[in-house]
């Protein structure tokens, strides 16, 4: 609560206070990262399975997409400071705001998925539903990855500095989630594509996240501390275990498939959560914010925002003070 006093203070921060603000987002947001990815990739899986004639898998994947697409806006709205004003999200479309772009994607993808579901249950609106199927699948792709853009496009070092890899981590996570969900609810003999997706996603997720954390170097410390680290371990363990179970017994045992699916799903969610939490850790410690910037300056990539050399040759001849300059 208090710093150790001026004498002991590390010189180069303001009483150890953060330079940027931690996000105000709460638990809904990492859940949404998960459900958005689930909805997005599931729609793709469903659509492609359908095209391949795997109706059993397709129906279940559509259902997963529907669950994801329904949960996502609920989570998002509930996180808003003013939930009643959620429609303001659609007041404009702004490419500079991944959240704006994402809201439209989510809205469109959700509507498409909804249409597909409606048609599936009631048989009505067949023609629009026919268009909605590929639309949901296609929109599902950016829906799965834009959330990475959303967090990368902030001042939070651990997010911003991994902007190149984070979308791949999230994309892989989406694949993993969709595969895991489908595997868990589909009889193993119909679930081969889902298993493949889950295992592919798992591999990519583990690899991409590992790569991302390494590339961050010192900035990646928040991933190795506190809740982000714990969640990271949980994620890795669950994903590895889930993948192992799935790879070995997933095709043969329903129980193993369910267990593997649940483990992978938990892993995917934990991984999202770990990214989320690492952002907080990175924002709250001025070392990361200032450190990265100081490095840039030291490397000569940028002069920084301060300058000691005046742009005039000499001070104004007439002496005046700021106190009375008008």
């Amino acid at each position, binding site marked *: 609560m*208090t710093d150790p*006093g*001026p004498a002991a203070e590390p*010189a180069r*921060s*303001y009483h150890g*206070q953060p*330079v*940027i*603000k*931690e*996000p*105000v987002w709460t638990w809904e947001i990492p859940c949404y990262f998960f459900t958005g990815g689930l909805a997005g990739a599931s729609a793709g*899986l469903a659509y*492609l399975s359908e*095209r*391949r004639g795997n109706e059993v898998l397709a129906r279940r994947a559509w259902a997963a997409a529907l669950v994801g697409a329904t949960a996502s806006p609920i989570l998002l709205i509930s996180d808003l*400071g003013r939930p009643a*004003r959620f429609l*303001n*999200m659609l*007041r*404009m479309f702004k490419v*500079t*705001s*991944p*959240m704006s772009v994402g809201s439209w994607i989510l809205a469109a993808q959700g509507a498409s998925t909804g249409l597909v579901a409606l048609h599936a249950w009631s048989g009505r609106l067949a023609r629009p539903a026919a268009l909605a199927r590929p639309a949901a699948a296609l929109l599902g*792709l*950016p829906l799965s990855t*834009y959330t990475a853009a*959303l967090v990368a496009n*902030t*001042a939070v070092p651990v997010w*911003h500095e991994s902007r190149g890899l*984070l*979308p*791949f981590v999230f*994309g892989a996570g989406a694949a993993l989630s969709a*595969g895991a969900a489908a595997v868990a609810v589909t009889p193993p003999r119909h679930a*081969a*594509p889902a298993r493949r*997706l889950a295992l592919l*996603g798992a591999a990519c997720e583990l690899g991409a996240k590992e790569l991302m954390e390494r590339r961050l170097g010192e900035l990646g410390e928040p991933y190795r501390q506190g809740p982000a680290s714990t969640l990271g371990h949980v994620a890795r363990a669950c994903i590895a275990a889930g993948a192992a179970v799935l790879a070995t017994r997933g095709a043969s045992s329903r129980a193993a498939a369910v267990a593997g699916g649940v483990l992978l799903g938990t892993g995917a969610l934990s991984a999202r959560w770990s990214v989320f939490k690492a*952002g907080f850790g990175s924002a709250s410690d001025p070392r990361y914010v*200032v450190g990265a*910037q*100081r490095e840039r300056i030291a490397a000569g990539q*940028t*002069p920084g*925002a*301060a*300058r*000691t050399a*005046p742009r005039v040759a*000499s*001070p104004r001849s007439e002496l005046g003070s*700021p*106190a*009375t*300059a008008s």
Partner: protein
Amino acid sequence: MKLETIAWPGSYGDQAKPRMGFFTDTSVCIGCKACEVACKEWNQIPMSVQGFTGHSYDNTIDLGANSWRHVAFIEQRKPVDADGDGSLSQVAARASLAEDQGLATYQEGDGIRWLMASDVCKHCTEAACLEVCPTGALFRTEYGTVVVQEDVCNGCGYCVPACPFGVLDQRQDDGRVWKCTLCYDRLKDEKEPACAQACPTNSIQYGELGELREGAEHRLAQLQHAGQREARLYLADDDDGVGGASAFFLLLDEPEVYGLPPDPVDSRRELGSIWAATAAAALALGAGLVAAALGGRR
């Protein structure tokens, strides 16, 4: 000198007003906090008692939803610097004298300085907060400033981590985000912002940005001339990471000492690459899906 922002003056046509801003000269700030109080009074900001922090005389802690001005207090032992001004070398002389007399534990020969600086939203030329706001609640005014429309903001919170200066924050009981408006309402009445008007030493100078920048260069030159080698302008240039700002500062030490980022960048500058990576990842996901669904058995 380029002062234009993306939406100003262009989108205002002849409604555009000169770009207004603050030059905060911290070398004359006496830490009276009149700016903090005047801002709260004028804008009817809720009280926020934080308790005793031990951060020197700063019990406000930082900028946030309920503090749109924040005065920082930094106590420093000033190392004896032979190149410094006269009084410092005298300090050095005293130091050795003190040592001779065995008094080193008491007057240690170190000078001390107490920096005070009033911080505020920078009203960046390239304002990340404004760019990321999905609702358009944050907008660029005809004065080139950045303001939250409180009737539009839905509290999505995106602007909060987007601001490279940690200015914006959400008000707990209200859900929306709040920050300095550069007294948009007062500007419209051709009044000076409340904080600047209250500042007794004119540490906060309000005016047309172009003129402020010119004055600031002279002030910097004056201080450098007087041996204040550590004096520097912060955010006074177009070529920094936020394209300069309407509120810029004269500091007497590195920005981070005041809790300011040394190289703030509007994240939008990387947005192209971010979108590219996002699209690539989406395609990769597509490819993965196709591979998973079409490869191997049904």
